[in-house]
């Protein structure tokens, strides 16, 4: 049956359903495109034959055409869903992605991610009364300006607003401006301690 390779791509992506990005399956895509090319060529040949009187071929041509459209749908859905996941990464990780995630992206996806990053940054600079507004901050409404955080891993030195440099060492606890550490908490380096 046609379209088996294409559904395999979709299954692979669906299995990683919690929004993770599996490695870009370049080989799978290539195989689907090859199948589509073969289908197209067979159809071209049969269309020419059908024109010269073999009208019983029309059902077969239709059959292949449906398979072509199906393959296209699977590929487009595969790429689109990956873009949704990549876009989510920008909001979850911030603008610098860990290497392991980057290795799972194709060159074009990397390019798209950079463009998205730029568009978002331009937009965030343009709002907020000329000063810009970081939309990834304060996703939950803040209750206080400072929060208590515990370090989950050795991170190194970290500068806060007034120029003080503190050392983020594993298991150390600090009282920091919320907006400075929100992203580090999202990345799993700090833990928010509720008092």
């Amino acid at each position: 049956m046609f379209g088996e390779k294409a559904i395999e791509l979709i299954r692979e992506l669906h299995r990683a359903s919690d929004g993770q990005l599996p490695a870009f399956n370049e080989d799978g895509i290539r195989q689907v495109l090859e199948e589509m090319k073969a289908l197209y060529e067979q159809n071209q040949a049969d269309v020419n034959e059908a024109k010269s009187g073999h009208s019983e071929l029309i059902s077969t041509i239709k059959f292949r055409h449906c398979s072509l459209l199906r393959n296209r749908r699977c590929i487009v859905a595969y790429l689109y869903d990956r873009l949704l996941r990549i876009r989510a990464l920008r909001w979850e990780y911030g603008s610098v992605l860990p290497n392991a995630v980057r290795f799972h992206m194709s060159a074009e996806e990397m390019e798209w991610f950079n463009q998205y990053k730029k568009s978002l940054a331009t937009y965030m600079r343009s709002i907020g009364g000329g000063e810009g507004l970081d939309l990834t901050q304060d996703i939950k409404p803040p209750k206080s300006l400072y929060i208590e955080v515990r370090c989950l891993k050795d991170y190194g030195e970290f500068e806060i607003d007034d120029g003080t440099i503190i050392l983020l060492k594993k298991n150390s606890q600090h009282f920091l401006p919320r907006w400075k550490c929100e992203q580090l908490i999202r990345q799993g380096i700090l833990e928010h301690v509720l008092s």
Partner: protein
Amino acid sequence: MSEAYVPVEAGFGLEEGYLSLEDILMSQERLPCRAETALPRLAAVLGKAGAEPLGSVPEGTKLEIPLWLAKGLYDNKRRVISVELPKIYKESWRTVFTADANVVDLHKLGPFYYGFGSQLLNFDSPENAEIAQTILQTFIGRFRRIMDSSQNAYNEDTSALVARLDELERVLFRVGQKGLNDFQSWEMGQASQITASSLVQNYRKRKFTDLDS
């Protein structure tokens, strides 16, 4: 906390979501058909190859083809195939659903019982009205139990509860669970806690953290 990644939603009723992974998997389910015209050169593809791989599939052959193909080939102007009902949508199973929808293992039968059933309405079968009615009544009959269990299973293993649910019902169950968990964390005053992103946490489980390397 709303997640940043939201997958494309499945379609509703007769419409499929073109880019929805769920719907693409749903339309891969097979249904029984009969070829209304001969299909030349397709014997090998349809697994009917005898001696010659480029042989023709004769008219009247019984086929099992995926829903997407059936939808593409089903056309009133030029009848290539006619569609038969899969057994769980037939009269005999419909009586089972009417008797007590709760005892049926829809995951084993489906797992896209509702989605696939709605798609069957695209083919003008004389039993369409009954199929639609059965699907609807099945959903009504099962919904109360799903809602109930999703709202009351807090901090426990839910795999037994969802094992017999159809894919659509699983989505509903998860939504209910999320609501319950969010409410509980609000009650305990944890709603304002900033947490690590679930994406990050999942990558960590798989040892993908080279954030510091």
